[in-house]
């Protein structure tokens, strides 16, 4: 059973985001880290990079392969989690505490269009029932 905190917004591609004023903190979900398996490297974007919602801007490398991660909203990268550089396995240990990227969000209302915990939970339930 995947953990799905109630206070976050989610994408269909298994990213989460939390808005703190005009800043969005994002990462991958528990379902995503479990599906990817042992994370061995996280390729983070350059600070200052502008991204549109849906742009792939992070690559999470697991033993199994490379996994693209997409930005949940449009904005500008302000900070990346450099702790992951030496300890990528933190993403497996707690994918919610160990965020990937902070963004200055162009339009905070964009996040309203994302899934809430209940809707995302339903999606994950369906995927888990399929056994994938």
């Amino acid at each position: 059973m995947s953990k799905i905190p109630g206070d976050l917004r989610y994408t269909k591609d298994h990213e989460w985001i939390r808005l703190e004023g005009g800043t969005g903190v994002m990462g991958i979900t528990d379902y995503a880290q479990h599906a990817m398996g042992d994370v061995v490297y996280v390729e983070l974007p350059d600070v200052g990079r502008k991204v549109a919602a849906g742009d792939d801007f992070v690559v999470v490398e697991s033993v199994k392969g490379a996994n693209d991660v997409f930005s949940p909203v449009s904005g500008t990268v302000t900070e990346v989690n450099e702790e992951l550089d030496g300890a990528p396995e933190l993403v497996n240990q707690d994918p919610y505490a160990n965020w990937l990227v902070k963004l200055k969000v162009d339009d905070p209302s964009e996040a309203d269009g994302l899934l809430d915990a209940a809707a995302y939970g339903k999606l994950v339930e369906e995927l888990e029932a399929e056994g994938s």
Partner: protein
Amino acid sequence: MKRTPMYERHVAAGGRMVDYGGWELPVQYESSGIKTEHLNVRSKAGLFDVSHMGEVTVEGARAEEWLSSLLSNDIAAMHDNQVQYNIMCNESGGVVDDLLVYRYSRTKYLLVVNAANTDKDVAWFRAHLPSDGVSMEDISPRTAEVALQGPEAEAILKKIADFDPASLKFFYFRDGATVGGIPAIVSRTGYTGEDGFEIYVDWKRGAELWDAVMKAGEGHGLLPIGLGARDSLRFEAGLPLYGHEYTDDMGPLEAGYGFFVKLDKPGGFIGRDALKRQKDDGLKHRIVATRLEDKGVPRQGMPVADEAGRVLGHVTSGGYSPTLDANIASCYVATPAPSEGESLWIDIRGKLKRAVVIKRPYYARGK
């Protein structure tokens, strides 16, 4: 999709089932994961379901001569009950498949080929079969196979085999054995760089064999191992894989497996003239082993370049090495290839990452 006789066992053990060339097989098991499985084979033992592999028997008065004409290694030098690694080349010196040859006698052999190539190989054999003196049969549909690998493999097998596995030498096999009471062929072979055994039984008794070995493995740290760790283990051990280090165009000399190619054996073999020419003219490409110095994970197909970004070749196998805790890549590059200690650059999504050439294999087990 095709299923092996152990399918239910994999599902019950939490196997994450994937489509592997039309076979539904576990890439990993939920309770462990690729890294844990990989390290467990190196430190203790692992059990692999490799029932998807192809098996072909070859018999007849001309069996030895015929196999020698198709395969790269010295078939005539084999002993009874010996196993030999071979490459089957096409006319231009590329690879049809690589395989293990088991010799019962000069007139009877068992060939073990890659699952994804079984149909192609069988067609190749049929196309080259002489009108008399040799017969062949694809026995894959009735042959299940497991690989028991790792330092504990011998102790585990000893508990359920009707012979002492210590008596079986590396790259030899025993026919007419039983394992867990099941009639079996057992060879001291594998694809992990560890000591270990491969066990062949009747398809219908595959699940029974699986259960017997798993039970014998209790107290020895035995884990079931999926396809993910099978690939990372073989890659670390420097073992080639068709579709990576070998292709229709990329042959065994460039890949660095010339040891298994006997260019001067009597009668020659298909592809011999092309390979001899490659050797005489000087190899145009080579595969070198590298370790990434910059951060990033190299993957198959990524371009390999020099410092100026001029493309020299591509990555044939790449990824994270659990044993070395480093990212490694085998690189197919134009000659002159860089030597040990020199650098290459791998283009990972548009960024050149520095890698240094190291000795192959990446991992060799201690004696």
